[in-house]
């Protein structure tokens, strides 16, 4: 057993730490968010030059052959600096899915484009009313000669408005909640019949509501086997959850650092408020929650690439449960310990809190994942 980063990962960690500290400044980030662009081109090109955009892709496709632990290192730092560029959407979710389930032609076509920073993708899977149920898909893809016609509505498509291409899940057979009968298609963002409503999110990211109205897709844009996409979707989402857990840990560490600094310097009753035992214990609990979450983020990253579905899903859900709870506690208490300053837009802590809140809501909140763990437990003892 070994929890150490490799030498390369340590170097990656150091350079990312420098990047978010020195270059990804709060004011510039704020300007980019206000612009509504959703991505800063120079930052994205910088990521491409650093090799971040193809880190987990095979070397045959211009990648570096990395794994989910490398993603953990990247995302922890992104969490620390509240990076809002579409790394999760394009590289982790869509890139991971193409890497794991795409055919040779699709990988050769897409992965080098992501790596170079030219191509942005998004996973359009969630649907209205599905809440966190991954198999709930009403969007249909029906055969039209050799092609498919896709119709339906997708929601909470992270950075869907910025993507050039969408990976769309659709039902090719079965009923709305069936795990079988799902298929995945590559759809051009500008294809006829695709309508995108692009929204800001509370944490400075972007999300899209996307509708598909008889969108024609050729058969070579089918990803993986027809009707059998559910395990692929699940695995991509698990990669995304592991990445979000790591990002949350980075944000919690930044929250703890900012809060610690604040309670050491803010004086009331003639003394730094950090001298009050009630705040010391609160801060100690925030620290405990963060360390526990960090351990679970490591577990999630270690299991995220695994094809042992039961073991992977259990680890991911345990991690998202505890990380979600920790994100809530650390976020709320970080704001509380900042007092009135904590609820102002000018404080970094307020923005960390917003991101931590949204991370809990993405791909299943703590309640949802606790239910997953609980159901798995019941199934095994039945």
């Amino acid at each position: 057993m070994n929890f150490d980063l490799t030498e390369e990962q340590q170097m990656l960690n150091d350079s990312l730490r420098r990047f978010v500290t020195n270059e990804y400044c709060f004011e510039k980030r704020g300007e980019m968010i206000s612009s509504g662009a959703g991505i800063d081109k120079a930052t994205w090109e910088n990521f491409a030059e650093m090799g971040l955009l193809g880190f987990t892709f095979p070397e045959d496709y211009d990648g570096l052959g990395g794994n989910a632990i490398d993603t953990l290192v990247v995302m922890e730092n992104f969490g620390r600096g509240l990076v809002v560029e579409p790394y999760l959407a394009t590289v982790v979710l869509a890139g991971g899915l193409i890497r794991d389930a795409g055919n040779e032609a699709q990988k050769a076509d897409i992965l080098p484009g992501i790596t170079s920073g030219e191509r942005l993708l998004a996973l359009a899977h969630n649907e209205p009313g599905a809440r966190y149920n991954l198999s709930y898909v009403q969007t249909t893809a029906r055969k039209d000669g050799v092609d498919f016609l896709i119709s339906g509505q997708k929601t909470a498509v992270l950075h869907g408005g910025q993507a050039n291409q969408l990976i769309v899940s659709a039902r090719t057979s079965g009923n709305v909640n069936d795990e079988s009968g799902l298929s995945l298609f590559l759809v051009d963002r500008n294809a006829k019949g695709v309508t995108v409503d692009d929204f800001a999110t509370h944490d400075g990211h972007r999300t899209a509501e996307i509708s598909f109205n008889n969108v024609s897709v050729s058969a070579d844009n089918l990803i993986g086997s027809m009707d059998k996409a559910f395990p692929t979707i699940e695995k991509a989402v698990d990669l995304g959850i592991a990445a979000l857990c790591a990002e949350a840990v980075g944000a919690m560490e930044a929250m703890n650092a900012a809060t610690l600094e604040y309670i050491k310097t803010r004086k009331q009753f003639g003394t730094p408020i950090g001298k009050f035992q009630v705040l010391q214990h609160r801060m100690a609990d925030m620290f405990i929650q963060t360390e526990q979450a960090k351990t679970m983020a490591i577990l999630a990253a270690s299991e995220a690439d695994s094809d042992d579905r039961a073991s992977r899903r259990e680890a991911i859900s345990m991690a998202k449960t505890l990380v979600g709870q920790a994100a809530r506690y650390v976020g709320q208490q970080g704001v509380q310990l900042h007092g009135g300053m904590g609820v102002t837009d000018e404080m970094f802590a307020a923005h960390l809190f917003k991101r931590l809140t949204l991370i809990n809501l993405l791909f299943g909140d703590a309640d949802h994942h606790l239910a997953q763990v609980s159901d798995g437990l019941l199934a095994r003892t039945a």
Partner: protein
Amino acid sequence: MDLNYTPEQEAFRAEVRQFLDENLPDDIRERVQKRLRPDKAMTERWQKILFDKGWGASTWSKEFGGTGWDPIQQIIFEEECALAGAPRQLDFGLRMVAPVIMTFGNDEQKQRFLPGIVSGEDWWCQGYSEPGAGSDLASLRTSAKREGEHYIVNGQKTWTTLGQHADWIFCLVRTSTEGKTQQGISFLLIDMNTPGIEVRPIIMLDGEHEINEVYFDNVKVPAENLIGEENQGWTYAKFLLGHERTGLANVGQWKAAMKRLKEVAREEQDGQRPLIENTRFRDRLAQLDAELRALELTVLRVLTDKRGPGPQASILKIRGTEIGQQLFEMLMEAGGQDAIAYIPEALELDYNGPRVGSADATPAAGDYFNMRKLSIFGGSNEIQRNIIAQLVLGL
């Protein structure tokens, strides 16, 4: 002991409900129930409607133009207003400065200030906190120096809620630096139109402009605007905070939010079932419902206690704010991923553009973020626990 309302109280409730049915304007009701952006004109219009009915000040005695209602009637009124979708009346005048003026002000001050509060003509804000004086309020430094018939005020106040609309501000100012910090404080009423006052917005984490900083640069305030005696302001300030904390229990508003939360739990889909059928969500809803019931009855217990609300008011502030925060957290969680979208333009009544999920999901996360203030302001919940430990438990 009898926890039922009397027939007279039930009749009163019916009367209030009928009045609200007939007099609460639809656009106001819609704005409140959809949790859209609050609006100054809306608050003023509603206060005027209540004033015209003679119900402008539900907590005041008739002597000052109030309703003369007993505490149970006040609670029934507040609850019915909240459930009907009426906007919250402005506390700063009605529940904060008015009791201070009535108790410690002179006759001339009562005649001068109280009518404008109950009619809604005068918008009041609170000048307590300063950048260096939050939880440690008594360390405030904004100074008022007596020069002839005036005080000259210099300094800065902060977290001034809705101060951008205000005609008047009630301020704690330092008139002496001798003795303990509490001893040199005075309570001064200041016209916001006086030269030398500058209001600067503070944008909150939900992106909204609700609070402000207020700067005083050689502001000349007539000495007749001093309440009570010079250097006795701390007594009045504490008296006011007791009233503020009781109001912060906010039971009526929370009951309205709970009612909506239960509806939302039926409307939101969790796959092929309504969210209410998700037992984990429903158990938490039930827990919160029980806590809200406990809060409601505790408020009634405290308010009907003839000894009045002593330091027990801190219990109401803590529980009221914690329950309110959890209600809005669950409203956000009910929206799930729909709640992530930030659509500030959708907080206006005439918005017809695209949104994500239901109309309840749109304000949900912003409300949750905004409500974090509840455990911080009015004396943070940590300070309230200190008060209970020291003044109730004698530790």
